[in-house]
């Protein structure tokens, strides 16, 4: 093997975009072997394993950080357009280099630690926040055969590691010695614990139907098409749709996005647990929040939107990993869209929404999924499961909400 051969493989690899990342990885491993032969040693297998791991880690972190940078400008653009503004358009073409400017600004800012703060904890908090956020993306299947760790308990892994961010938010809020911070931290924890239930429940439903906790297995279970064009994604079943929406809202709450941005609700708590953070530590929080958001939405794509499967059979010429990121981009867009529309919940309403609406609905979806599973996944199953989620939806909607709040029950008098 020589270097020219390796170079010659590059155009070959590029001919099949579907397997491009995998082949690329192999190429890098071969390159390492070639390097070993250059110094005259046989590269032991553990080095190759290590290189393999490093390549995957670097790729995932790089992709997610680039996505974070792009998202930070894209979000501002979409939000601006939804509000009939231009958004950032001064740095680079269409403001695309805005993240660079932001990054330089963040890095050069003074790092302020309050005098009364618990300095060690104040320092640790952003790290604790970032580490789980960067671990999360490893288990998502980005394409056919493209998963960093194919864990049999992948879904569980996700929620277990995700629990770390709660600790981080608590650390940040508590160590700042600021009333807004501590209130924000308390809100964050209450919110995350409450919404973890519907989140896990809706993931459990999928695991129930797919019969596995492995993300790859779940994506494979959604392969194929009904009638040759209708994808077998779980979101296109009644229970799956409900579970998907529940998962989506829980994911919003877990990643502290509007309308569940109570922990940092600026109209009440200034910036919540982030009030006393500045400079690079703030940037780390920001980064962790976005990477965590991508990860949890990636899980949503995996669980409900068919992962890397193409939506229509004739679209399979687009590589599977592209489909994953297209779906992720759509979800990211929808997050901004929601943010542009909705006001924030109040703390008690948020808790009520979690416990009185989302949790019962997730149970209903569970029953519905079971019915769908046993009724034979046909028209009958469809009907039964649709009824099983529709009735609780309208009932809960009425009893939790419409009964108390409606614009129609108000009367306004006019005097001439």
């Amino acid at each position, binding site marked *: 093997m020589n270097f020219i051969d390796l170079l010659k493989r590059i155009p070959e690899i590029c001919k099949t975009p579907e397997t491009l990342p995998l082949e690329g990885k192999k190429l890098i491993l071969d390159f390492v072997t070639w390097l070993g032969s250059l110094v005259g*040693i046989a590269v032991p297998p553990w080095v190759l394993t290590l290189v393999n791991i490093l390549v995957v880690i670097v790729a995932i972190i790089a992709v997610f950080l680039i996505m974070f940078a792009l998202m930070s400008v894209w979000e501002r653009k979409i939000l601006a357009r939804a509000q009939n503004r231009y958004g950032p358009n001064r740095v680079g073409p269409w403001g695309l280099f805005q993240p660079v400017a932001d990054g330089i600004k963040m890095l050069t800012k003074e790092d302020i630690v309050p005098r009364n703060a618990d300095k060690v904890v104040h320092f640790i908090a952003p790290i604790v926040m970032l580490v789980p956020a960067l671990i999360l993306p490893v288990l998502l299947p980005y394409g056919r055969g493209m998963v960093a760790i194919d864990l049999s308990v992948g879904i*569980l892994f996700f929620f277990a590691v995700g629990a770390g961010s709660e600790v981080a938010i608590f650390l940040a809020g*508590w160590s700042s010695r600021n009333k807004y911070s501590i209130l924000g931290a*308390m809100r964050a*924890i209450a919110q995350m614990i409450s919404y*973890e239930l519907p989140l896990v429940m809706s993931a459990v439903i999928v695991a129930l139907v797919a019969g596995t906790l492995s993300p790859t297995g779940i994506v494979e279970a959604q392969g194929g098409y009904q009638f040759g064009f209708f994808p077998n994604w779980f979101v296109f079943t009644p229970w799956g749709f409900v579970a998907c929406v529940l998962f989506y809202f829980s994911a919003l709450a877990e990643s502290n996005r509007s309308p569940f941005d109570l922990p940092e609700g600026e109209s009440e708590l200034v910036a919540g647990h982030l009030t006393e953070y500045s400079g690079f530590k703030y940037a780390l929080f920001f980064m962790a929040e976005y990477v965590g958001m991508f990860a949890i939405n990636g899980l949503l794509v995996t669980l409900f939107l068919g992962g890397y499967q193409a939506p229509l059979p004739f679209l399979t010429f687009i590589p599977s990993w592209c489909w994953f990121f297209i779906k992720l981009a759509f979800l990211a867009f929808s997050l901004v869209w929601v943010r542009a529309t909705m006001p924030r919940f109040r703390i008690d309403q948020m808790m009520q929404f979690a416990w009185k609406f989302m949790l019962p609905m997730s149970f209903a979806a569970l029953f519905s999924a079971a019915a769908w599973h046993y009724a034979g996944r046909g028209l009958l199953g469809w009907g039964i499961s649709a009824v099983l989620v529709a009735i609780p939806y309208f009932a809960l909607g009425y009893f939790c909400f419409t009964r108390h709040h409606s614009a129609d029950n108000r009367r306004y008098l006019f005097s001439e």
Partner: protein
Amino acid sequence: MHELFQKIIALPWDQAPQWLFLIPAFVMLMGAAAAVMLRNLIHCALCLTLSFIALGVLFMALGAEFVGFVQLLVYVGAVAMLILFAILLTPAGEVAASNNPLRNFKFSRAFAAAGGATVALLVLVSLLGAIFFSPHARAVVPPAQAAIAPVKAIGENLLNHTLLPLQATAILLTAALIGAALLAKEEKKS
């Protein structure tokens, strides 16, 4: 130089997980010790969380991924948070209240130390006994095999052989939950 490099490469690196478990074990022990010894309650709780995490990592290193993740999910995600919440919501004044009758007793410290040591010893002995005399300790299970099986096996075990205890526990926990809610509500009224 070249020889040294080759020697380093030839070391049994792929056996690393065998002794890498020392790191989480050490972290766990240090966390537990700090949780007992630190003055600041919140720091104690945080160190306890750290030892929970290390324990979870230890489980995973042993190939018991399911247990490890459940450990993280339940203990870090919920129990540690509840402890922190409880500390924050407890009025600071009540902790320092000096109505402890044993406080003025002459040998209170010595007694406390002796009692603590006894309990610790008992726990240690029973744990060691459990480890050394249980039949599982002898059975050599290859870690790789253990990692694949668990979820399905645990599920089937829970819902077939131990269904009744599971349901009973569920009812008990539900009752406890409702009771706690009732108690909390009563207190608010008065």
